């Protein structure tokens, strides 16, 4: 990342080496990484996330059966499901499918929903925040009023309203969750950019005649992105939990063969008394995945925030 110092120095005909720049500022991420490496909570969070990512990638090799394989349907009686066994670690669901295999494949859906919705919401939110933060005046006012309106609706309600219009599908769940995250990213980035704009290095960059585009994209934006990345990590957890809630309300994929944790949990509610594991397994998977992102996100925030190191 170039800093204002290098650009100003170049503009004034000076050559600064990387080491000199590093001494003046920088090193925030390296320091933060060092702190994260010593934080048990961050390590637990990272291990959980790594496990889920590996499970998602290698699902076909880890899962003993295909997620839609209902070979064992004949073993299922109404209200009575085969208990866990050596062949089926978590038992068989009411449709005669192996619960463990569906749980493994479900990791893919949950992570996909989380990542896609956060990236989508993050991009739009950062775009809006950038507009508001880079231009003051009516652009800022217009964007922020729009953001205020989105924030005035509770996020679950907003997601329900959007998913209801788009019809039940994984895509509508992703779009609905993405929209709920837009105002959060936009407001956060704008606040950060306003803080950066008031700092001395931006004044110095302006004084040395740099163009607005260079200042915004080269300096203000890169220096404002850290809290956005932290928020993105934290929002992954919210996205996974909200996706489960939307699945519970029948707003996720209408295809019952799609292995998805929220859907598995919902479908298992009638079997709670006879086969509680059918609901508990996907429930715990959701909690662990959400916990992983929350732990890492919160520790990142602390590691990157100078306030915590006074």
């Amino acid at each position, binding site marked *: 990342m170039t800093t204002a110092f290098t650009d100003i120095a170049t503009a004034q005909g000076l050559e600064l080496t990387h080491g000199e720049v590093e001494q003046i500022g920088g090193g925030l991420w390296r320091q933060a990484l060092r702190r994260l490496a010593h934080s048990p909570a961050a390590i637990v969070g990272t291990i959980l996330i790594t496990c889920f990512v590996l499970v998602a990638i290698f699902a076909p090799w880890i899962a003993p059966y295909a997620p839609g394989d209902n070979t064992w349907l004949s073993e299922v009686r109404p209200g009575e499901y085969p208990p866990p066994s050596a062949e089926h670690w978590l038992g068989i669901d009411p449709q005669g499918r192996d619960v463990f295999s569906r749980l493994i494949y479900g990791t893919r859906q949950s992570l996909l929903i989380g990542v896609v919705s956060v990236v989508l919401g993050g991009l739009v939110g950062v775009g809006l925040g950038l507009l508001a933060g880079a231009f003051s005046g009516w652009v800022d006012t217009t964007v922020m009023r729009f953001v205020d309106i989105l924030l*005035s609706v509770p996020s679950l309600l907003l997601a329900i309203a959007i998913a209801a219009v788009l019809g039940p599908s994984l895509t509508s769940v992703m779009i609905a969750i993405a929209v709920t995250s837009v105002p959060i990213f936009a407001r956060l980035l704008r606040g950060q950019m306003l803080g950066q704009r008031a700092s001395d290095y931006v004044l110095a960059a302006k004084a040395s005649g740099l163009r607005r585009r260079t200042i915004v994209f080269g300096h203000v934006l890169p220096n404002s992105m850290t809290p956005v990345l932290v928020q993105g990590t934290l929002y992954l957890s919210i996205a996974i939990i909200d996706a489960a809630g939307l699945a519970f309300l029948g707003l996720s994929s209408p295809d019952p063969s799609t292995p998805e944790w929220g859907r598995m*949990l919902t479908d298992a509610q009638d079997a709670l008394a006879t086969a509680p594991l059918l609901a508990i397994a996907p*429930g715990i998977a959701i*909690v662990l995945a959400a916990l992983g992102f929350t732990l890492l996100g919160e520790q990142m925030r602390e590691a990157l925030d100078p306030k915590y190191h006074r």
Partner: protein
Amino acid sequence: MGRVIARRLLQAIPILIGLSVLMFAWVRALPGGPAEALVRADASAAEVEAVRESLGLNRPIWIQYLAYLKQVVQFDFGTSLMSRQPVRAEMIDRFPASIELAVSAMIFALVIGVPLGYYAARRYGSALDHLFVASSLIGITIPVFFMAYLLKFVFAVQLGWLPTTGRSNARVESDHPTGFYVLDGLLTGNLGASWDAIQHLILPAIALGTIPLAIIVRMTRATVLDVMNEDYVRTAEAKGLTKFRISSRHVMRNALIPLVTIVGLQLGLLMSGTVLTETVFSFPGVGSFVAGALFARDYPTIQGFVVVIAVMYIIVNLVVDIAYAYIDPRVRAS
């Protein structure tokens, strides 16, 4: 103080207008077209035409918007496709149940959360502090409806301590002048009915209150830690005041101010959270009705719910901001 209220009221106006524009666009984006989506699938051409007329679909867009605004201001959201009753009547019938549930959840979160947060801060760094922080993290990451399932399974199905579903026992005779069952029992002198209503509220309220509980524990802990390091607390200690007096008069009075905001924000979120909790416990409030509406694609009901809860959320936040200025002279001065 009057200026704070006036300024905050003025700020709410563009948000309400923006919200109405968004909802207007939402109705127009409904699958199959606005008029067709707002009537039953087996509706006659005349019924579709009547809705088309009420929405003013043949007139210019701004007249359509004004017509829509007029309907919304009167809380006229049309007829529920599921029950064939006006959405407004359904809402009025069911709102007391949901408000009773949301308030119970908030009381549960506050009564448990504030002492736990305070205790964690006083024992900062101890094993109990770590335990409370870890539990609150898990509390935030448990999906509301999963928590509801677990509570229902353990305490209602397995142990049989509390009822599994509903709001009251049909065998307990009671009158309901206000629709708030606990209050109704007290008003009519029927304590048995109040107790029955409380028993039906316990599990849904705990399930719904888990997230605010976790947030309140963390928030109280953080603010108490901040306040404990303030100069005025050190001064109070130096003056030789008793521990109780310092914690009640100096620490908690200041630490609880941010809680006002949390309570306001969370009440709005709790109202939307009732969609999930009420469904698990078949609790006859607005939430379970709307969950049914989502499955039945009952758009008039969904629209009514979104508008009413969003407006409530805006009003609650408005009241919270004003209350905040009233409680904290520093906010008023700024």
